[in-house]
């Protein structure tokens, strides 16, 4: 029941927030509830057995019997960290939005909790239809978050976001239904369970687009690629990011984009191994192009938030590259980079939100000399910048290093591209940092009528956990990688014939011992 509580408690919280009588304490309530949710996820983390590659804490029962659709969720080394990332970021986001969200506070927090349910559900669901329900549900609260609390062009941005991502995923639904019929053909019993999908042998013919596996592969891949988003399907992202309020940007960059890369890891690569391998060049190519393109476009942005948004396109390109390298380094690096990006880019958006609250502008040219006015803010911003450009000892380094290692092993030519991206990343971030924090004081900073205040205690409390994570993940990557190792290795080694076993609680260690004995 623990996973179900993790998924559906936020939904209950959303209701609680909505009916809460006092609007001035609703923030405290929401913060408390989100911390409860985080503690619950820590409890799951403690129970999790890192030695097993199987699915743990599984909950499974028939939901729609006619079609073999199950209520089916479980956790493994791949979803574990993404769930923790979600629950970790949520209290931080709520605290960060303390003073920036002043209207319809109840609605905002309710949307936040519904979104949490949808995201965690997406990461834990192991039945295709069940997964699809969460996947689509996540659009609705995000749509409201951008549309109600966003900037001037919020409506354009939010409708574009919704339609883009919805359009991407409709073909996935058709593919899911089709695969349900394939399970019926294979076993006589219709099923939408991921484990049954893994067992399918879907015919694949190389060289043609119209082979069954290729078609299904692209139906799924399109949905995930738009969510990631890969070049050239990324155009909704800068719009959504720029118009979204700070918490919206953080959750979008921090978690929602990972739903796409997670989709590749959980669904596309193991379900369609031959097609994935055959078309890997395409995805590595668009990954590499995305890295360079995102970086180049980021470089010329006058708006600092848009700069970070384009840097996301660049960073997500790395993840794609790592995943389609199909080796342990690349996969582990891809997963690590998902977490890194969630923390670093999330933190960047929070920092930008803080300075925006003070000056109501995000134009780089209007800043300058911020370092002398806001020393504390500068320090935090600097640390996160270093993490974002992957300086050693920060989390970003570990991820990019592993990805590049994996890519060199698999497809060196793409790695050359990617390395260029590392340099470009340093260029645009450091250049931006220089223009914002050093040099002549810009018009916003020099404005004597409105002196800028440095970070207050709440804001420091928001940033400290993120900075701690930056160094923790940078200095002790094995604390994190070890928990995913078994699952990643299992995926890499059995990619063409992938399967997952369900591990009964308490028996995980003994199974592993037995396997070791063989």
């Amino acid at each position, binding site marked *: 029941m623990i996973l179900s509580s993790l998924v559906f408690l936020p939904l209950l919280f959303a209701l609680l927030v909505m009916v809460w009588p006092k609007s001035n304490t609703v923030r405290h309530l929401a913060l408390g509830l989100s911390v409860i949710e985080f503690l619950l996820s820590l409890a799951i983390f403690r129970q999790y057995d890192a030695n097993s590659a199987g699915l743990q804490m599984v909950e499974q029962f028939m939901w729609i019997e006619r079609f073999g659709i199950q209520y089916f969720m479980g956790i493994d080394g791949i979803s574990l960290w993404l769930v923790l990332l979600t629950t970790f970021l949520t209290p931080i986001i709520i605290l960060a939005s303390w003073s920036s969200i002043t209207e319809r506070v109840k609605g905002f927090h309710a949307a936040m909790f519904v979104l949490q349910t949808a995201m965690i559900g997406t990461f834990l669901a192991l039945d295709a239809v069940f997964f699809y329900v969460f996947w689509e549900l996540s659009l609705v609260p995000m749509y409201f978050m951008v549309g109600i609390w966003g900037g001037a062009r919020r409506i354009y941005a939010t409708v574009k976001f919704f339609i883009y991502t919805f359009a991407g995923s409709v073909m996935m639904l*058709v593919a899911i239904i089709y695969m349900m019929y394939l399970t019926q053909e294979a076993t006589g019993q219709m099923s939408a369970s991921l484990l049954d999908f893994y067992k399918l042998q879907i015919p694949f013919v190389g060289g043609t687009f119209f082979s069954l596996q290729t078609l299904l592969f692209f139906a799924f891949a399109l949905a995930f690629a738009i969510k990631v988003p890969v070049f050239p399907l990324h155009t909704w992202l800068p719009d959504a990011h720029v118009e979204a309020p700070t918490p919206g940007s953080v959750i979008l960059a921090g978690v929602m984009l990972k739903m796409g890369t997670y989709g590749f890891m959980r669904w596309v690569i193991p379900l369609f191994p031959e097609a994935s391998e055959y078309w890997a060049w395409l995805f590595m190519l668009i990954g590499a192009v995305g890295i360079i393109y995102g970086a180049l476009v980021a470089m010329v942005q006058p708006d600092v938030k848009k700069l970070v948004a384009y840097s996301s396109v660049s960073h997500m390109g790395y993840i794609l590259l790592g995943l389609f390298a199909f080796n342990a380094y690349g996969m582990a690096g891809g997963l690590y980079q998902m977490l890194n990006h969630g923390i670093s880019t999330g933190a960047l958006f929070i920092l930008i939100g803080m300075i925006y609250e003070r000056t109501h502008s995000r134009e780089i040219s209007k800043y300058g000399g911020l370092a002398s006015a806001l020393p504390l803010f500068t320090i935090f911003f600097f640390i996160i910048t270093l993490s974002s450009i992957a300086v050693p000892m920060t989390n970003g380094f570990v991820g990019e290093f592993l990805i590049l290692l994996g890519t060199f092993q698999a497809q060196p030519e793409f790695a050359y591209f990617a390395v260029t991206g590392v340099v470009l990343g340093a260029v645009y971030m450091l250049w931006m940092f220089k223009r914002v924090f050093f040099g002549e004081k810009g018009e916003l900073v020099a404005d004597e009528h409105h002196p800028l205040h440095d970070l207050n205690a709440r804001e420091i409390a928001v940033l400290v956990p993120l900075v701690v994570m930056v160094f923790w993940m940078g200095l002790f990557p094995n604390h994190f990688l070890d928990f995913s190792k078994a699952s990643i290795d299992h995926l890499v080694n059995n990619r063409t014939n992938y399967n997952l076993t369900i591990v009964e609680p308490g028996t995980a260690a003994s199974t592993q011992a037995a396997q070791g004995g063989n």
Partner: protein
Amino acid sequence: MNAATIGLSDILLVSPMLALFLVSLIPITAKVLRNNREQHPLVTLSQALIGIVIAIGLLIVFGGGGKTAFNNGLIFDGVTQWMGIIALASAGAGMVMMYENPSTTGKQFSELIFLAMSSAIGMLILVSAVDLLMVFIGLELMSLALYLMIGMSHEEKLSKEASLKYFILGSFASAIFLYGVAFIFGSTGGTNILNFMETAAELVQSSRMFLFGMTFVILGFCFKVSIFPFHAWTPDVYQGSPTPHTAFMATAVKTVSFAAFLRVIATKSLVGSDHLFDILQWLAVLTMIVGNAAAIMQNNLKRMIAYSSVAHSGYLLIGVITAGVSDSGAFGASGVIFYLLGYGLMTIGALAIASMLEKSENHIINIDDLSGFAKQRPMLALCLTVFLLSLAGIPPTLGFFGKFYLFNAAIGEGLLWLAVWGMLSSVIAVYYYLRPIVVMYMKEGNAEIAGHSLNATTVTAVVMALAIVLMGFVSGPIFAAVEASLL
């Protein structure tokens, strides 16, 4: 058919219709006895609703099991029960709205309710008819009452125009239908669907006359359920009618028309004629595209819903085709029924909220009128959001599961491309379903809510919204129950 064959079982089977008929007489009789003075509208409404509840109860108790009545003229099986219940419930909800909407309350409420009840009797005949002439009788009884209803309660020009348009085109459709029936009679010597159930697939190939008749019968239905290119009347009539009538037509009328359509298609005539099969597939695709594309351009809320209902007819036609070509037929048919169940709930709900925005008889509601609605009436705005998201097919609402089951049946029968088109055109649909939500939540303004409170209509909307969300979670058992009743 002679009198001797009519027994008690026939009477019991048609008891829902008898009950409706008897109850429908009460309000107008009371009016006559009271020297042409209206009784309190609430009393009239309660009588009508009691009648509907009784009819639904009788339908559940005595119907089902594939029993036939009146010399195989009527059949009482799963389709009859489910479609009948959906239609009657929608009709009831429509009457609740009639009670409160400014354009339909007034001096002639008893007559209005009498007509609505008569129309409902026609609907019950239509869902159970297996003789093409019975179908015709049901169709006409339902439609004649509607022509009057649309025209009578409104002083406005638009409504007269709608009434006339609906009357002329409706009669045209009936004539085409009847023409088709004549051809079928000419080629088979009978009009009972059950008689040519087994042989229709061959007849379509061997007899040009039968094919001709079948085509015309199908055309008649295409008119009734607004399949492209026979949909042109829909937006005008939906917009011109008082909103409760629009709700009545969009849900109850559509449901029963599809029920009769299903019965004709279930003869497997599509299996025999490839051309008919191909043409219907294309009509489904075009209907989805045209309905959705036209809905994008609408500013008028009711017109938008009208075009969206055209698009939904396209989705439903996929199910009808599936039922026609699949071996059991039950799968596709239950997809249609389930879809109609969801569609009924969300359309009634959306129109109930539109009805609340109507200040006067001549009030035209544009989408922009909703601006600020979320601040003034957060609860109702949330309900409307649920309806729109459900119409768009976003999980976990009932609308999503409706599409899921419908497309599932289509893919199961190898009609993959229809499902693909359906999904693609639902992407277009998302665009216009989001617009009212944008206006409600994201634009400043003062939504003009009618001065008098519409309590019953509000309750209807809230109940529908709750049902849409909750039934989404238990859609599996509902679908299984529908399918089991058809096997």
